């Protein structure tokens, strides 16, 4: 290969990625024996419910508010969207507790921990803007209750909870994009560093 090709950023990046993340590490056949515990299933439960949240959200986006407020199928898909969010947060909190008590930031895994924590915060924002995007009296009530608190933080100038159009865009574009990108990065980092091992028993060599 010519030196000009060798120096291309695409070539250099590909070579780095292949070394850092070989296919066997990206999609491994097996996991260490300590992963055979129920506490390790909540990360993937969170991702599965995130998939369901996005799928039902796409259906809601296709059909629109009149459909989800007035038709029985719309009510059903709206409920699926809500309950998959409930499962998402439930599983994510149990995952968070599990990783906290394992001190999962050990072994150069700080960035894995940080991306997970930021994903949690972004998801809270996505859930909040979801409440504001229902387009009913409930969303009006929540937005008027939230406005003073949000405005007191100083972000009200570009995050106006009384602006339904802006809140809807945060809910269906910016925050889901952030949550999905961060989740992808989080999973890649788990693959890169591996699943954190348990603490060694006291007195063990």
């Amino acid at each position, binding site marked *: 290969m010519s030196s000009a090709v060798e120096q291309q950023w695409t070539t250099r990046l590909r070579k780095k990625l292949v070394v850092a993340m070989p296919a066997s590490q990206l999609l491994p056949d097996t996991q260490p*024996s300590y992963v*055979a*515990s*129920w*506490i390790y*299933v*909540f990360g993937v439960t969170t991702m599965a419910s995130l998939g369901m949240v996005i799928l039902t959200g796409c259906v809601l986006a296709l059909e629109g508010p009149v459909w989800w407020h007035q038709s029985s199928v719309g009510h*059903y898909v709206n*409920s699926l969207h809500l309950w998959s969010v*409930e499962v998402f947060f*439930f599983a994510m*909190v*149990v995952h968070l*507790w*599990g990783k906290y008590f394992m001190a999962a930031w050990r072994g150069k895994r700080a960035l894995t921990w940080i991306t997970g924590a930021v994903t949690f915060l972004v998801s809270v924002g996505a859930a909040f803007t979801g409440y504001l995007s229902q387009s009913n009296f409930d969303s009006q009530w929540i937005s008027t209750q939230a406005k003073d608190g949000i405005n007191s933080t100083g972000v009200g100038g570009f995050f106006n909870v009384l602006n339904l159009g802006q809140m809807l865009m945060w809910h269906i574009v910016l925050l889901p994009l952030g949550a999905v990108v961060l989740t992808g990065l989080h999973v890649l980092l788990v693959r890169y560093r591996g699943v954190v091992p348990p603490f060694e028993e006291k007195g063990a060599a």
Partner: protein
Amino acid sequence: MGLIGALINLDHYGHYLTWHWLNISVANLVVIVLMIAVFISALLLPFPGRAKRRSGK
């Protein structure tokens, strides 16, 4: 959903518990208790095939 609706009437205002400064809805409290129960169960319940994996079979 109709069956669940028949068993539990969800068509009413939420119930709240108040203790000094703490004010929490029963629904939120139930979810928190369930999360703690699931967390403890996940630590204690045996995972299917765990012994087999450890023995390397």
